[in-house]
């Protein structure tokens, strides 16, 4: 066990876990989207889980730093919140805010983060960009909604865990980046049918079975 101080509160954490996990385990919420408990090398891609650690010049991603004894962490500084709010606004500027018809409604981490950071789900500051078409239904069992997806990559991670070689990947570059299915020719086979782990893990229901598309 290690002991660290978060926001002036001393907490205990298991050896070797990240600052993010340590905080979450102790009921201290840090907004995060791409981290899965126990990940050995997290993607550090959502850029939400910033904290300030004494001795570090700039805010750091808490999922990428191991908790150590005596570490002094702040999760709520102005700089941290500034970065989190900007990151969130950026994510929302490409998100189709249609909560009423979205199967993730009420269990969506984006809704939770909006409340937590006190940022509206429709920040007007940035221009809205939505992809067209708004659904990719190439997969025989699964539909993908790029305008819900925030590219956390959890689906690819679990797919790799289950099948070794993932059947999905990031595709295209830059702003056009999406999740895309590839791999075996026939994706309707038992591997996909019996697994569907990607659907269970998707926090924003950007990946759903065809019949689940609208609840």
């Amino acid at each position, binding site marked *: 066990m290690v002991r660290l101080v978060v926001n002036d509160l001393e907490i205990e954490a298991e050896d070797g876990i990240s600052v993010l996990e340590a905080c979450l385990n102790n009921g201290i919420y840090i907004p995060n989207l791409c981290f899965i408990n126990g990940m050995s090398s997290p993607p550090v891609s959502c*850029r939400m889980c910033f904290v300030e650690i004494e001795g570090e010049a700039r805010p750091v991603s808490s999922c990428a730093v191991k908790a150590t004894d005596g570490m002094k962490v702040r999760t709520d500084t102005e*700089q941290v919140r500034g970065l989190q709010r900007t990151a969130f606004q950026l994510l929302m500027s490409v998100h189709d805010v249609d909560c009423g018809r979205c199967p993730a409604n009420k269990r969506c981490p984006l809704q939770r983060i909006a409340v937590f950071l006190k940022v509206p789900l429709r920040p007007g500051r940035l221009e809205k960009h939505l992809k067209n078409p708004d659904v990719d239904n190439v997969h025989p069992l699964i539909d993908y909604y790029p305008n819900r997806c925030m590219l956390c990559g959890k689906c690819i991670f679990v797919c790799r865990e289950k099948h070794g070689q993932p059947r999905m990947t990031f595709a295209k570059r830059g702003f056009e980046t999406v999740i895309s299915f590839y791999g075996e020719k026939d994706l309707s086979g038992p591997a996909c049918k019996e697994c569907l782990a990607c659907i269970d893990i998707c926090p924003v229901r950007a990946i759903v079975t065809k019949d689940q598309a609208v609840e």
Partner: protein
Amino acid sequence: MNPANRPEMTQRFEAIYNEAVARKKALNESSQPMIYIGMATCGLAAGALETRQSFEQTLLEEDLAAIIRPVGCIGHCYAEPVVIIDHPSSGFPPLFYQQVTPGKAKMLVKSFLAGGDPLFEHVLGAMKANDMVPQVTDFPRFSQEERIVMGKCGLIDPEDIYDYIAEGGYLSLIKALTLSQDEIIKEIKNSGLRGRGGAGFLTGRKWGLAKDAQGLKKFVICNADEGDPGAYMDRTILESNPHQVLEGMAICAYAVGATEAIAYVRSEYPIAVKRVVTAISQAEELGLFGEGAQGFFDIKFSVFKGSGAFVCGEETALIQSLEGNRGMPRHRPPYPVQKGLNGHPTVINNVKTLASVPAIINKGAQWYRDIGARQSPGTAIFSVVGSVVHPGLVEIPMGVTLETLIFDICGGIPNKKGFKAVQIGGPSGGCLPADFLATPIDFDSLSGAGAMMGSGGMVVMDEDTCMVNVARYFVDFTQKESCGKCTFCRIGTRHLLDILDRITKGEGREGDLEQLESLALAIKAGSLCGLGKTAPNPILTSLRYFRDEYEAHIMEKRCPAGMCRKLTAYYIDLDRCARGCDACVGSCPVEAIFTTKNRKKGIDQSLCVKCGECMAACPQQYDAVRKVSPPDKAPVIERPVEE
């Protein structure tokens, strides 16, 4: 290699060296003239292949004998295709000819090789001191350079290992193999060599960390995934002298205890790839490299072709790409020296860094330290492009000022235009205005000014360049090349581009600049990798130094440089337009130019696409086409109603 085998190794190399020298001597002693043609990508693009054919054909026709030697690039782009003719029996020193077209090649054979007249009007200079022709080194484009990395570029055959060895190549490797690993690393540390990939990390320190890192296996990777717009020094070095880079890699591999060395070359550089592959197989054939006991020490060389993603120049993305994954950076630490390719300690160095190593081992750390600036020893290679008279690759000691480089060495701005800005470091760098011309070129001074050394791209811009447009160009580039992994870079750069797009179209709004600035700073602070962290630099520096230009675009809908098409208009000054001249009419691709009642010309603004062709076509003595911004400043000239 076992230390006991060292005498045997030295002996083996001596035999190779003697062979190389003998070959060179035989070439030099043959009475035939030698024609060196620069045949790197740049030369080939300028027509070196046709020039070579013309030489061969004319030699055949004239029944003359000469040895044609394809060499790499000497770095003088303005002079391509470059030919050096060494014709000792004519009594002249080796002569450097510029822009040798096939026609010129024919003339050279007929008058110089056959008739002994070297055609002085086409000679740029002599390659050796003599009392007939001024030497090239008397010209500022040559005299202020100091060539350590590019010393042999354009002078030796890159596809002939003996050519390199005869010039002292691989001697540094042999010397290094007689030293201990720590001695080499100490030498590199003492030399103060800093990584030429952009950030300027101390190379000796990196090697030291890699040597001390625990691993069953270690790798050395040469990062030749050069992708900055306007930068091409890595390509030129690999195409012109691949062995020097391989020698640096081999020394590094021995010093850190690596058994595999990989050259990561982007596949858009097919000639570089080919020459590196050739170079490796030649070195293996001679027994310099090889696995187990085949070579002088246990090392396996290979080449990996990158697939055209700019982000793969970032070292963690490069490793992902080598492992067969999508090229996406990951969080550092762990750094590649701790956990790199397949989890093994990996040194990743830039081409120029590795190419500097043999000279340091050969001549010593102190020699290297005495060159260049205190905190940035050695030389810097820039590809100076854009509005300069003599563009090309320039290798200068660190500490030379921007002014010296742009005006003295590269000849300044052509066409009597004024200097406006210089963009250093590509999409990660910044634009510096004239006030910064006195800045010395070294890692710290440049980053202090808001630019960065980067990999060495330098774009010089004249007064006709719109800085908003330049910022837009670079952000467009990074936006397209972003890997899409992290939020700030993927989405943030798109919003930056949106705003800049609007501003250049005259749709800028109040508050745009503040938003640009705050978003740019957030992207800088929040992005995962170097690409994202530096992507806003062109915007931040141009906002700092050229804010008035942004404001003119937004407030007055005016582009001060007259570059943004939506904000400019062309019109014809009727006082200057010559009655009856039709030069502009034919040049207009959209038939926007009409004849007025008194047979002068007018431009129909509703049709004009602002290509500027009419301005170029208008005869100099009239000079009647004018460009204005904002566009409503153009006087209205009515098209006469057709009867």
